[in-house]
């Protein structure tokens, strides 16, 4: 058996002249929680749609659980579960009726169906509200039920597409715990999000995706470590004296410095110490600082560093 449960090679999805996904290649290992981190419109959902046989790739190949998504879609579909970004539930039906329906779609019936529905309701903490109409549920409860509907048939791979959009912090934590529990039980999870905290907390590895391309792929620790000690943005009044940028680059705590829209972007190995040295330098050179921003090293900063924009832009 291959070490990887998902292997994508040069995946492309075109809509007319627009390329939503531009040649993605990656592999996800068995039992891994793999994150797609990127802003809205980056191509995360389109990629999941191709991996789950909803969309046919315009180019490239993808093997999921040992089967080609184009050549053997039914084989792939039996082995995956999808929790879409939308609340894919029937609001007027009860939680149990919704799960019964989706369970039957996956071929469960009789005692096995009842047992799986009970287990799943218990797992997402909705056993006591099983008979309630979904339209009466809170946002968090609906999200949990949305996840439950993707788990009924015990998939080998679970695609979670932005599962925490619009939920309160308490429900978000509950969802994190479910994901961790499912993964501990051996389920491989592909998790898309534009919240860097979620990627950092849940994912073994993260692919940072922007404009249909993977721009970085590694463990959250390694991605952050590669960035160094953080980023400092400085606004400087009256332009910048000749040679000041070189002096900044020469500081021992600074890894790189560039001009960016009238600001100076400084990549530091140690942000706090670099800040002290920078302020001392500006003092010596009579440079007025009009704005100062210190970005702690995290995935958000990594994204900003790589793309020049924030995840939630």
């Amino acid at each position, binding site marked *: 058996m291959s070490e990887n449960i998902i292997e994508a090679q040069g995946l492309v999805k075109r809509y007319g002249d627009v390329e939503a996904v531009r040649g993605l290649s990656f592999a996800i290992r068995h039992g891994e929680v793999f994150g797609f981190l990127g802003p809205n419109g980056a191509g995360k959902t389109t990629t999941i749609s191709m991996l789950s046989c909803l969309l046919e790739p315009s180019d490239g190949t993808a093997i999921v659980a040992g089967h080609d998504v184009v050549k053997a879609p039914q084989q792939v579909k039996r082995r995956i579960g999808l929790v879409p970004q939308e609340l894919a539930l029937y609001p007027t039906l009860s939680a149990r009726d919704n799960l019964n329906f989706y369970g039957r*779609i996956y071929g469960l019936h009789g005692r096995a169906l009842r047992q799986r529905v009970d287990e799943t309701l218990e797992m997402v903490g909705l056993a006591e509200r099983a008979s309630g109409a979904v339209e009466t549920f809170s946002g968090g409860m609906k999200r949990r039920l949305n996840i439950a509907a993707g788990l009924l048939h015990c998939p080998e791979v679970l695609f979670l597409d932005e599962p925490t959009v619009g939920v309160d912090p308490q429900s978000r934590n509950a969802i994190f715990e479910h994901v961790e529990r499912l993964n501990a039980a051996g389920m491989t999870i592909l998790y898309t999000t534009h919240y860097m905290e979620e990627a950092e907390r849940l994912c073994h590895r993260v692919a940072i995706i922007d404009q249909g391309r993977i721009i970085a792929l590694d463990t959250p620790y390694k991605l952050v470590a590669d960035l160094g000690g953080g980023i400092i943005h400085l606004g400087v009044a009256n332009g910048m004296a000749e040679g000041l940028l070189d002096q900044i680059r020469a500081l021992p705590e600074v890894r790189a410095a560039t001009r960016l829209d009238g600001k100076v972007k400084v990549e530091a190995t140690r942000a706090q110490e670099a800040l002290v040295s920078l302020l001392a330098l500006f003092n010596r050179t009579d440079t007025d600082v009009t704005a100062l921003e210190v970005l702690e090293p995290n995935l958000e900063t990594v994204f900003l560093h790589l793309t020049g924009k924030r995840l939630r832009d």
Partner: protein
Amino acid sequence: MLRQVLSITWKDLKILFKDIGGMAVLFLMPMMFIIVMSTALQGTFDPGDTGQPRHLPVVNLDSGGLAAEAIAQLDNIDGIEVETAWEDEPLTRERAEALVSDGDRAVAVVFPADFSARVEGRLEDAEARATIELITDPAVSTQFIAPIQGMVFGVAERVAETALIPARLEAGLAEVLTHLPGEAQIPLDEMTIEAEETNVVHMEQVAPPGMGIEVFPDSYQQNVPGYTVFGVFFIVATMAESILREKQEGTFRRLLVAPLPKPILLAGKLLPYYLVNLLQVAVMFGVAHFLFGMALGQPAALLAVSLALAAAATGLGVLVATFGKTQTQISGLSVLLTLTMSAMGGCLVPTFAMPDFMQTLARFTPHGWAMQGFQDVLVRGYGLVGVWPEAAVLLGFAAVFFLVAVWRFRFD
């Protein structure tokens, strides 16, 4: 506050005009309805001298000359176009029956071989009648037949009476001469009485062979199938909107990820609406039968047409769902299709009252075939064998709708 109102109005106008298909349907729908209804009802509402002429096939078997005289007078009436030949052959009785039974003509007239002889025989026998046969489709309403019947009868009666006048005058004068002198006034009175006795001509209404019972449709037999078919096709909008809602709310996405082939998924969406359709038919016909005493004909034949009709309606529902991308498009397209096809298919206006080309168009709609199927059962008394062509065509429509829908259905 006005600025806010205008902002909202502008925003909604932009959204509406981005949906070109939806807007087109909003304009097309009333336009199509106006065109179809106006054209379909042309023959009914036009006074006759400017509108579409009513074709009247006439078979002349008369060995004398009176029928020819009557036919010539009929041909002179505005709005009537007498047809004594068909495809360059003199019209025969068999051909006239076929024209009526095939639905090409609603009515045909047959002047029998002894027409002139019987009229002239009236002089010898006061009870003698010259019979004209009116071949009609039993499904055609009396409202349509009555004016034609009246016209043919009136012309034939006038020709007959005119033909009898010289002989009667002669006989009357002879009588006068016998009684002269002194009693001339008596036979003159008798002549007046004789002249008032009309009905030399008798009309007999018959159905073409094979069109079982000669029962004319009452208003229920016309309207119940008409509005049932009309109503059954309204499922198209409900069904297509449901599919669109599933797509928009993500439930369809989840179903498409499940290991279900697309045709199965679409069939699953189709079945509940199919059952609702059957329920609609059962309720409509049930009410007509139990409350208004409408005879239902042979149950197996009625069931066959109903099953096929529901399949065609739900098939169209799935197909419409693949064309509409917004709720506006779906509802507009559904209304456009259902109203136009209902009018074309004879649900709202009987097809026999339509011009020829509209009658031909009716054959391209499932509504037309369903109407014909139901009327075969209810009015013409056909059984399962008699309605199989209509049921087969309806199932053909269903199959085409469904297969095109499966082919067109796209997640993206």
